[in-house]
């Protein structure tokens, strides 16, 4: 069979070793959840609902564990009570470094203690939804992150960003990626100096007109509206180009999915009787591999479901 290209000698039913041959029970789960999500393309159905709810449960649990470890155990428990932690330093009268700055361990304990107190206040929401206490930790978070973003983004996306634009002045051709682009075999452009200049002008006209489009409060004179129109054109080409550029990445995802499914069509994963050594496993064996078996089941159930009840909820 053309599908069973690569053959694995034998697959165990269950194995925690993630580097060896995947186990059959895992393969069944893997194929089921993949195909169940794909079934959403046809319409909302029980398989998708199951996959969705499992996903929500599992995703929440996975993230909770990560942040329990990195956000509670490490910065609170390990930091205070762990090996070389604040408490140990208090006994040995050492010094705690916070962000490279030396702090008395008692102070460090007090600071983290306040954090713990505020964290408890946050959880108070559960018991007293209208209490003012949870607002305190929320206020801290907003203050911290708003300041972090304001300073960081102004620096990187405004000041340095605008500054760097002049590093490729109009007439200097070896400073921008133009000559580098020509080296990509499929993206070659002859290194015409003048065309390069022309491109730079396109760039600056596009940039300035698109910026003008985002002026909101000045009266729209004919000139302003005209420049803004050029800006809209630039933005539309930008969107079209980005859309087209993204296609490659998105289709790669689908191909990888199909490839993974294909790898489970090897006879080692077949639920049917094992073929004798050196024998062609046959069509039945292939039909009984997880991807094909499960997709047949899903398609059959969905097709029957349509025959039985037409509840008008198909999302056409």
């Amino acid at each position, binding site marked *: 069979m*053309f599908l069973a290209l690569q053959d694995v000698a034998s697959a165990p039913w269950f194995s925690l070793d993630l580097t060896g041959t995947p186990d059959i029970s895992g393969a069944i789960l893997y194929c089921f959840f993949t195909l169940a999500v794909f079934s959403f393309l046809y319409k909302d159905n029980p398989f998708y609902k199951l996959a969705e709810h499992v996903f929500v449960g599992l995703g929440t649990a996975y993230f909770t564990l990560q942040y329990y470890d990195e956000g509670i155990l490490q910065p609170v428990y390990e930091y205070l009570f762990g090996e070389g932690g604040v408490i140990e330093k208090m006994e040995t009268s050492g010094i705690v470094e916070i962000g490279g700055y030396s702090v008395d361990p008692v102070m460090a304990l007090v600071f983290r203690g306040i954090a713990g107190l505020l964290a408890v206040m946050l959880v108070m929401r559960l018991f007293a939804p209208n209490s003012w206490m949870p607002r305190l930790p929320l206020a801290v978070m907003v203050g911290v992150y708003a300041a972090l973003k304001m300073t960081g983004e102004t620096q990187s996306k405004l000041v340095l960003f605008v500054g760097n634009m002049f590093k490729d002045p109009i007439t200097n051709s070896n400073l921008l990626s133009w000559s580098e682009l020509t080296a990509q075999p*499929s*993206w070659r452009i002859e290194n015409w100096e003048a065309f390069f200049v022309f491109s730079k002008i396109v760039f600056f006209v596009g940039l300035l007109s698109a910026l003008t489009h985002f002026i909101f409060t000045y009266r729209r004179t004919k000139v302003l509206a005209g420049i803004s129109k050029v800006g809209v054109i630039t933005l539309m080409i930008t969107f079209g180009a980005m859309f087209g550029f993204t296609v*490659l990445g998105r289709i*790669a*995802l689908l*191909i990888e999915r199909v*490839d993974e499914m294909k790898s489970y069509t090897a006879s080692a994963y077949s639920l049917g009787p094992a073929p004798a050594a050196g024998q062609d496993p046959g069509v039945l064996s292939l039909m009984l591999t997880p991807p094909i078996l499960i997709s047949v089941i899903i398609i059959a159930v969905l097709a029957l479901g349509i025959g039985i009840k037409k509840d008008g909820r198909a999302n056409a």
Partner: protein
Amino acid sequence: MASVHDFDRRWIFLIMGLLVVGLVAAGISAPMPVSEYVDSYFATIDKLPEGSIVMVSADFDPASAAELLPMYTGTIHHLLAKKMRIVNVCTWPAAPPYTASRFAEIAPMYDAVYGEDWVELGFLPGDDVAMGTIGQSLRSAYPRETKNNMAYDDVPLLRDCGDSMGNIELLITMSAGYPGILEWIAQVGGRYEIELLAGTTAVQTPDLFAFYPSQLSGFLGAATGATQYLQLVDDVAIDGSVTADKETQQSRMLVQTWAHYFMILLIIVGNVIYFTGRKSS
């Protein structure tokens, strides 16, 4: 003629699905020409002396693994084949299982020893702040490694790293989005004058042209880049260990081409329907 809105888009889904399944099943592959960015990515790793310490940051999750995992695998093969020492970090919470399983599979091929030839430091929360911390002091970012929970100074490789980025020759990131390569450039690349390489998804690739080659010594862009890179790595990796991966990638590029043709056909058909529909009404 049916109007555009009456058309059941599930036909498009079906044709797209069948096209991809059919072509993947056929599994035809052909080699690709290698672009400059990929060449320079490969050369940057290749030219490093034996035993150099390289930090590899896995900044992706299963969703982007389709694009980035082949690059990651290829890079690990390449580094270990060249006898580099790898410090592995993650700024995405869903990445560590991937890195662990990759190393478990690849390291034995090159007789690499944990703690000496490679070390896994695991996930560090805080996005770009975490990157800043790593740049400032690796020891305070990771008091312990993640695999065996050993203290920083008990690991020979980390002892050699010391505390600053100074002993690390190269930083490679497999970057799926935020936080990723742009944040590494801002937080570490610019401040510590360390050489940077990146593997990125298609969506991010256009952002990177501006950084090459001044701030970024090379990059692998999307599936195209991964394919080209694996072609190169195949020659240095231990006998044929990445050949299968390479051929898979090559055949995937062919599927890509046909899927793109299909997209363009869709646009043409969509416009024909639109214009004929408008005339008749």
